[in-house]
């Protein structure tokens, strides 16, 4: 089973992300960079499938020099090799642009299953994985919390509002991860040592036959970024007893806030 994991490096969710002076990009100088949490589930699931069915796990990512750290971390978790498409302005591409780059990489490597995060926790697009499947003309199942591979097919439990749906697909296919799929392992010290010797191919867009300029002009662009309106801290309801406090809260919700 040849498994490919699509991976993005993102600011850790505990990071404060600022808005740059140009008002259309974010300031990420002081953030801690990590593997997108949903892609971590993807790496873990790929490793478990490999452990059960054999084969190999390849990590594919688009990013800058520093993105290599995230790919190395996935290799330290147990993946076999990495491919990094290095591009200094990839942050400017929209989701479809990134998906086209990933699809171009995948055209040249074997795969039975592709696993991607349902979304990256930076741009929250929910787009790239599904778009890669479309560009490769293979089926996709998103938001998967459980999968089983039986007789060359994959059966997935996909989350929907208020429940789950079980869907089966032929292979090759692409699935996206949902929280609950697994508990990602930590990279062990021997794993980290081994990862240093694992192959990591760093390529440019030109190396995979793409024109550098073709992604710069896309159909959408950010015109401005702003912080959501700051919530002012309200008031702490004081009172002699819990009952008094609750009565005052209910009065406030009814008469001031008008939500009940």
């Amino acid at each position, binding site marked *: 089973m040849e498994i490919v994991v699509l991976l993005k490096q993102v600011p850790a*969710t*505990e990071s*404060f*992300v600022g808005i740059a002076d140009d008002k259309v990009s*974010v300031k990420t100088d002081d953030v801690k960079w990590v593997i997108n*949490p*949903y892609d971590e589930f993807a790496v873990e699931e790929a490793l478990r499938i490999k452990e059960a069915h054999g084969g190999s796990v390849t990590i594919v990512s688009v990013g800058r020099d520093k993105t290599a750290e995230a790919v190395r971390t996935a290799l330290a978790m147990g993946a076999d090799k990495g491919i990094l498409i290095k591009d200094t302005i990839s942050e400017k591409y929209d989701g479809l642009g990134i998906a086209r780059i990933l699809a171009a990489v995948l055209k040249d490597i074997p795969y039975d299953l592709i696993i991607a995060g349902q979304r990256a*926790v*930076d*741009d*929250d*697009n*929910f*787009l790239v994985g*599904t*778009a890669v*499947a*479309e*560009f490769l003309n293979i*089926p*996709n*199942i*998103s938001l998967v*919390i459980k999968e089983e591979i039986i007789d060359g097919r994959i*059966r997935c439990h996909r*989350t*929907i*509002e*208020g*429940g789950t*749906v*079980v*869907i*089966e*697909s*032929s292979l090759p*296919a692409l699935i996206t991860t949902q*929280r*609950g799929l697994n508990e990602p392992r930590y990279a062990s010290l021997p794993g980290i040592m081994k990862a240093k010797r694992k192959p990591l191919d760093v390529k440019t867009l030109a190396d995979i036959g793409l024109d550098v300029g073709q992604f710069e002009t*896309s*159909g*959408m*662009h*950010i*015109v401005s970024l*702003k912080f*959501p309106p700051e*919530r002012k*801290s309200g*008031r*702490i309801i004081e009172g002699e007893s*819990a009952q008094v406090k*609750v009565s005052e*809260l*209910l009065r*406030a*919700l009814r008469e001031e*806030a008008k*939500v*009940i």
Partner: protein
Amino acid sequence: MSKGVLAITEQLDGVFRKVTYEALSEGRRIADQLGCDLTAVVLGSNVEIIAAELGKYGADRIIAADNPILDEYLTDTYTNVISDIIASENPAVIILGASMQGKDLSARLAARLNVSLAMDCVVIRIEDEKLIATRPIYGGKILADIAMDTKPVILAVRPNSMGITETDCAGDIEKYDANIGQTNLKFIEKTLDTTKIELTEADMVVSGGRGMGGADFSVLEELAEMFGGAVGASRSAVDEGWRPHADQVGQTGKVVSPNLYIACGISGAIQHLAGMSSSKIIVAVNKDPEAPIFLKADYGIVGDLFEIVPLITEEIRKIK
């Protein structure tokens, strides 16, 4: 020339999702601004009967693709049929709800049509004949205004972000003979808890955090039931195994924007705040007066949630 607004509706077992009415209402507003028609698309089995009600939410026309094969949503069958409809209708704007199904479908459609998609938009406006969509990024820590140039564009609206407006429109139903096309997916089964109100669509959410001290969330469930609301949880409560993953509110869980959000025993980590800051009114109940959640709450009560929450439930019971 592209023209018109096409709203893709979503129904589950014959009932439209609330976000479908929100998308239709917003679609009506955009159609009025552009001076064009709003057409609703309904896919499913025996949907012609329910399709009629869409006129009430602003649809001038309703295209009903009634086919037993479309009974259950599958990414490829729905994408095939809807892209055919888009090819013949040639709309300028496609709008749908960013539910879990809507997210999957809109992403695949955007790739197939090679057009821009604004996922989870909370505000849509037209400026100099250009569509600008506002959408949260970084889990709601930042709002991005996105200009969209392709024809058509796809707008997936975040549940609970846009109001529902009833406008009586003709709502003429046209039967559509769908060509299902190639499919590699097979529906096996579905498990639904219909008694639960979906977190992202609930008008009221009460969430518990580490302060719950265990898996017994019954005090919150009773309060939620009194409001007809939903129960959520912080990441730490989910990590402890007290609540299912589907209940997690926050940057790596669900983003909610109810009218009333009550945070119980939740300290207020930045990731949790990102998931609930767009709620209209926030109430916090916490033992620790220094908990950061109080800085974001409209009303705070310092105290034991196991004492306070049942009292709130009792007071609400009295009002009702």
